[in-house]
C-alpha cells in the first residue's frame, strides 16, 4: 500500500477532526499498491440529503458536496439496505444524468459506498472513489466495513454525549428555577399570607370593629387574590420550563381574544383609570393558542395598571402591516429606564425601584407573555421613558387564510373610553 504524504489541515471550523482522520484512513485502506491515492469522504445523512463533512484527497481537490438521495440511486441503495455498494462507473449509462455528471467531472471510474450505522440507523456513508480501474478487493471492503463500525460508534457516542449534556443543562435550569421558586415562596407568598393571618387574628380577637372589619375583609380578599395569581404564574412557568410551552394552534381572531382580555381586566380597574381602545374592527386572523394569547394580553394589561399607581389612561391600540399585526398597550405610569429595559423580560426580572418596591409580583408575567408571543412566531418589545410611561407592543404573524369563513364586522376607527368604578 502506498503511503501518501499526509498533511491534513486541522479542522478549524468546528468540525469533528475524527471524521477527517477517518476519511484519510479510508483512503489509505482503499488504495491498492501501485495506484494513485484514492479519495475518500464521510457524508452525514440528514433525511434525504447526504452532506460531505470530511474528505481526503491527496491532490487537495475538494468537493464538499451534497447528494440528494433520489438523484444518486447508488447512495440511496446503500442507505436503504445498509449494505456496502461497489459501483462500476465506467459505464455511465447506468447512472442518472446528475450522477453521470459528477462521475465525469471527477473522472471517477468506480466507487465504494460504505454505510455507517449508529445502532440500527444509517447515519452516514463513507464514500471512496477511484480514478483507476483496479476495483475494490475483498479485504479492502472488509477493512472499510470495520472502519465504518468505528465511525458509527463515534457518531453514537457524540449524540449520547450531547443528549447527556443537554439533559444536564436542563436539569441545572430546573434546579435554578426551584431555587427561585423557594425564594418566591419565602417572600412573595409569605408576605400576603402574613397579612391575611394578621387581619384574621384581629377579627377573631375583637380588635377590629365597625368599618375596620370591612376594611380587613377587603384586604384579606385582595391578598388571597394576589397569592392566587402568584401561584398561577409559578405553575405556568414551571410547566413551560419542564415541558416546553405546548401550543394548541387554531384559527383565531386575535381581536376577539383582545376584547375578552379587556373585558376581564375592566372590572378590576380603579376609578382613576380609564381604558381606551384604538383600531379598526377588522378581524386579526392568526394561528394561535387562544387561552395562551389571552394570558399574554392580560399580563400586559395587568402590568399597565400595576405600574401606573397614579392611574391615568391605558390605551390599547392595534394595526396590521405587511402580514403582521401589532397590538400595543400604553400606560402613563412610572416608566422604565433604558438599563432596566434589558432585564425586563428575563425570568424574575421584576424591577424594584423606590417607586415600584411596594408592588408585589413574581416578576414572571412579562417573561411568560414574551415566551407565548415568541412561540407563536411573534415577539414583545417595549418603549418607555422614566416618569412618562411605557408602551409594550406585541407582534404576531397574521394567517390571512385562517378565518376565511368570517367576514369583517364593522369597518372604521372605533375609540372607546370607559371610566371604571371600583
Amino acid at each position: 500500500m502506498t503511503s501518501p504524504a499526509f498533511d491534513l489541515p486541522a479542522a478549524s471550523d468546528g468540525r469533528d477532526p475524527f471524521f477527517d482522520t477517518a476519511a484519510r484512513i479510508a483512503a489509505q485502506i482503499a488504495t491498492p499498491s501501485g495506484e494513485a491515492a484514492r479519495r475518500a469522504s464521510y457524508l452525514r445523512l440528514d433525511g434525504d440529503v447526504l452532506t460531505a463533512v470530511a474528505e481526503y484527497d491527496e491532490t487537495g481537490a475538494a468537493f464538499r458536496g451534497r447528494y440528494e438521495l433520489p438523484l444518486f440511486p447508488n447512495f440511496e441503495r446503500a442507505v436503504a439496505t445498509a449494505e456496502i455498494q461497489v459501483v462500476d462507473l465506467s459505464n455511465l449509462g447506468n447512472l442518472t444524468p446528475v450522477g453521470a455528471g459528477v462521475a465525469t467531472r471527477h473522472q471517477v471510474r468506480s466507487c465504494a459506498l460504505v454505510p455507517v450505522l449508529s445502532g440500527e440507523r444509517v447515519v452516514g456513508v463513507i464514500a471512496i472513489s477511484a480514478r483507476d480501474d483496479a476495483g475494490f478487493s475483498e479485504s479492502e471492503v472488509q477493512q472499510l466495513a470495520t472502519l465504518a463500525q468505528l465511525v458509527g460508534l463515534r457518531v453514537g457516542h457524540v449524540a449520547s454525549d450531547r443528549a447527556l449534556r443537554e439533559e444536564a443543562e436542563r436539569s441545572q435550569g430546573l434546579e435554578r428555577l426551584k431555587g427561585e421558586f423557594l425564594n418566591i415562596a419565602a417572600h412573595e407568598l409569605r408576605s400576603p399570607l402574613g397579612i391575611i393571618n394578621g387581619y384574621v387574628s384581629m377579627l377573631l380577637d375583637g380588635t377590629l370593629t365597625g368599618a375596620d372589619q370591612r376594611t380587613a375583609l377587603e384586604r384579606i380578599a385582595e391578598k388571597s387574590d394576589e397569592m392566587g395569581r402568584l401561584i398561577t404564574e409559578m405553575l405556568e412557568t414551571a410547566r413551560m420550563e419542564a415541558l416546553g410551552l405546548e401550543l394548541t394552534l387554531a384559527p383565531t381572531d386575535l381581536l376577539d381574544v383582545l376584547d375578552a382580555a379587556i373585558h376581564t381586566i375592566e372590572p378590576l380597574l380603579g376609578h382613576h383609570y380609564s381604558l381606551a381602545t384604538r383600531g379598526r374592527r377588522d378581524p386579526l386572523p392568526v394561528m394561535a393558542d387562544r387561552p395562551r394569547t389571552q394570558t399574554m394580553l392580560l399580563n400586559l394589561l395587568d402590568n399597565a395598571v400595576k405600574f401606573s399607581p397614579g392611574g391615568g389612561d391605558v390605551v390599547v391600540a392595534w394595526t396590521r402591516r405587511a402580514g403582521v399585526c401589532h397590538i400595543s398597550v400604553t400606560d402613563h405610569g412610572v416608566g422604565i429606564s433604558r438599563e432596566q429595559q434589558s432585564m425586563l423580560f428575563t425570568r424574575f426580572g421584576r424591577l424594584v425601584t423606590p417607586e415600584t418596591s411596594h408592588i408585589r409580583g413574581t416578576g414572571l408575567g412579562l417573561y411568560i407573555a414574551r415566551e407565548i408571543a415568541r412561540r407563536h412566531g411573534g415577539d414583545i418589545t417595549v418603549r418607555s421613558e422614566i416618569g412618562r410611561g411605557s408602551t409594550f407592543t406585541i407582534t404576531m404573524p397574521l394567517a390571512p387564510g385562517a378565518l376565511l369563513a368570517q367576514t369583517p364586522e364593522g369597518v372604521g376607527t372605533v375609540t372607546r373610553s370607559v371610566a371604571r368604578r371600583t
Partner: protein
Amino acid sequence: MSDTANAWGDFLTLEDDVKVLLIEDDAAAAEMYRLRLVADGYAVVVADDGEKGLAMAEAERPDFIYLDLRLPRIDGFEVLERLRADPETASIPVIILSNFGEPELRERGLKLGALEFLVKADTTPSRLSETVNRVTAPKALPSV
C-alpha cells in the same frame, strides 16, 4: 453593651406615650400593624424605606423600632448598623420583623444589635404590642 443597658434605663423612666417607628415598605402590612399598635395605645409612625427610616429615627426619637429587612434604597441591616453607629439613636431598641427567617439572617441581625428577630408569617399583630409592652416594662429589662 452596658452603655446600651443604661440608655434603656433612661428611656424607661419616661412616662409619655410610647412611640413606635415601623420601618416597613409593604403598605398593607404597615397599615395592619399600625391599627393594632394604635388600638393598644401606642403612638405609631411609619417609614416606607430605609432612608426615611433613619431620618425618622433621628427626628421622631421613637421609643421602639420595628425594622423590615428587605427595603428599598437601604436594606434593614444597613439601617440597623447606622442606627447603632449614631449616638443619638444607638440606644433605641430595635426588633427585626422580616419575611425571611433563615438562621444566618437571624444571627446577623442579633449580632448587629437587634433585640429580637421576628418572622412576619409567625407573628400576629398582637404579638407586636405584647413585645413592645414586655420590652418597655421594667421587669423585662435585659440583665446585662
